[in-house]
């Protein structure tokens, strides 16, 4: 198993630094391109959620990304110490309603669920821990 850990300030620019680091790490690990794209989107959505909502763009705060390549699956752990918030039980977007009236805010988690096979949330001490597991096709 190969692992990479990155602690980043809570800003949108640093979310994208994390996404770029993920892309580089996955490319080195020869994760298929299509899986990398799904992982990048998932990390962008969930980390920006932490930055914009849990921390309200307080750049003094940080979040931690742990990337693990297990061969048959890729695991991303996103850890923050914002107020307890379970993104998996936030309201799902109503895709059938008038798109102009709909709250588009729920689209992020909708996209993540499409690309990530297993999503788990836990509150550990004063930290939110989100585990995202993507299954990889056999090499």
């Amino acid at each position, binding site marked *: 198993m190969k692992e990479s850990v990155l602690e980043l300030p809570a800003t*949108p620019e640093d*979310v*994208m630094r994390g996404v770029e680091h993920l892309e580089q790490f996955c490319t080195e690990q020869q994760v298929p391109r299509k899986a990398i794209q799904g992982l990048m989107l998932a990390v962008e959505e969930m980390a920006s959620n932490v930055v914009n909502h849990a921390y309200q763009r307080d750049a003094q705060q940080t979040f931690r990304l742990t990337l693990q390549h297990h061969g048959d699956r890729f695991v991303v752990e996103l850890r923050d110490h914002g107020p307890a918030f379970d993104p998996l039980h936030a309201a799902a977007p109503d*895709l059938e309603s008038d798109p102009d009236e709909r709250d588009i805010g729920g*689209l992020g988690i*909708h996209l993540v669920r499409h690309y990530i096979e297993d999503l788990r949330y836990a509150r550990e001490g004063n930290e939110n821990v989100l585990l995202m597991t993507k299954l990889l096709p056999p090499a």
Partner: protein
Amino acid sequence: MPLDIKIKRQVDSPRHTTLTVELGGSLDTATAPQLEAQLTPALDAQVKDLIFDLAKLTFISSAGLRVFAATRKFLKQQGEQVSFVNLQPQIQEVFEIVKALPGVSVFGSIAEFDSYLAARQRKVVEGE
């Protein structure tokens, strides 16, 4: 991952301007505000067609989709048209997942869009 934005303004008639917005790179949580800032002043009353050319766009997240949705909402109030052309497969996939923001017309290529424009012009000539 930066976002490249090129806005081209084509005056078709005194009351009809077509805006083509070429996007390249990454439309994400860090770059979406840049698109919003450049788009807002460009959308005046003469703009009747807005085309997003996404040929060079490699990444999009819900932050980017939110700008598209807000733009569409703004233009729809004046009966105007927003189109998306030249989507790369991974962008097309994201559009399909969110049901492509229902009501927004999505075209596969500029060629398809040209034939759509020609069809619409024929309708005008025929007085429909």
